[in-house]
């Protein structure tokens, strides 16, 4: 074997080590900064699934898919009394309701007494609240946690999903979007 070939072989010996180092760096980077984004629903621009949930609160009716699609765009807020970010967004939902937005609620895995306490403490901006005791509507919507808010247009089609709490700076944008969805 010529010296030239031997030198090339020696260089090739380092290739596997290099590959392992590059992979290790990628794994460590992915573990630290990696893929902890929320999973977006794929059930967007599709009609609401058919559902009929019983009332979750004493002073509000239950929620059914037939409540939607009457020409009025609505927010469908998926929440729970045991969810801490839901407390954070409660004042913003109240503000939206004051500005004339119809906010429908779905209470996930909630006990009536817990929900009553939550609404008594933070106010009740909801037009109707359905009890989803086994996350069935949440699964049908492609929702993966609380709080989430879906924008439903006047025909009952899901147009957008917002994951996490609604914050005050989102109000003007939400109002404009809902106005366009009539």
């Amino acid at each position: 074997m010529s010296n030239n070939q031997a030198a090339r072989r020696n260089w090739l010996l380092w290739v596997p080590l290099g590959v392992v180092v590059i992979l290790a760096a990628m794994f460590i980077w992915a573990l630290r900064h990696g893929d902890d984004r929320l999973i977006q629903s794929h059930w967007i621009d599709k009609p609401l699934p058919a559902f009929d949930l019983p009332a979750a609160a004493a002073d509000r009716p239950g929620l059914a898919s037939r409540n939607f699609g009457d020409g009025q765009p609505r927010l469908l807020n998926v929440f729970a009394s045991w969810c801490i970010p839901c407390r954070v967004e409660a004042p913003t939902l109240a503000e939206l309701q004051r500005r004339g937005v119809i906010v429908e609620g779905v209470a996930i895995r909630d006990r009536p007494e817990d929900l009553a306490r939550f609404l008594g403490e933070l106010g009740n901006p909801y037009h109707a609240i359905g009890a989803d005791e086994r996350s069935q509507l949440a699964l049908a919507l492609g929702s993966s946690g609380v709080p989430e808010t879906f924008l439903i247009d006047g025909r009952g089609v899901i147009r957008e999903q917002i994951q996490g709490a609604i914050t005050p700076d989102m109000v003007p944008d939400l109002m404009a979007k809902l106005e366009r969805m009539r």
Partner: protein
Amino acid sequence: MRFALLLAVFALCCAIFPPAIHAQSGLPPAPYAYRQLDDPVQEAAARNLMAELRCLVCQGQSIADSDAPLAGDMRSDVRERIAAGERPAEIRQWLIDRYGNWVTYDPPIEGDTIALYVLPLLALLGGLFIVIRRLRPAKQGDGAP
């Protein structure tokens, strides 16, 4: 020494995966979250499916492995649908329609998942190629020095 090493590994794990604190629901688990179906054939089919469905709130675990309330709700849903005669493939597709291929550990072959299936084959072929070249009898004048 060994204890100190274990402690260091534990501290490293905590730094990389901070323990998540989740608020949890006060409601009891769904009926079939922790209860098997009476028919062993149906239960086996349900288990196979649950092992390949990803838990939505504890990404990286299957719903079969997770104690999250939502995973319990999904297990109950899977068992009840199978008891009602739905096929596992239909249930999986129902979830893929809502959450994308991300929801299953056995994703269908499509544009964005084809690399998962093709790359291992390519690596195997590459390895075979190298081994065959090595094992081939050395040519005249190309032997060891």
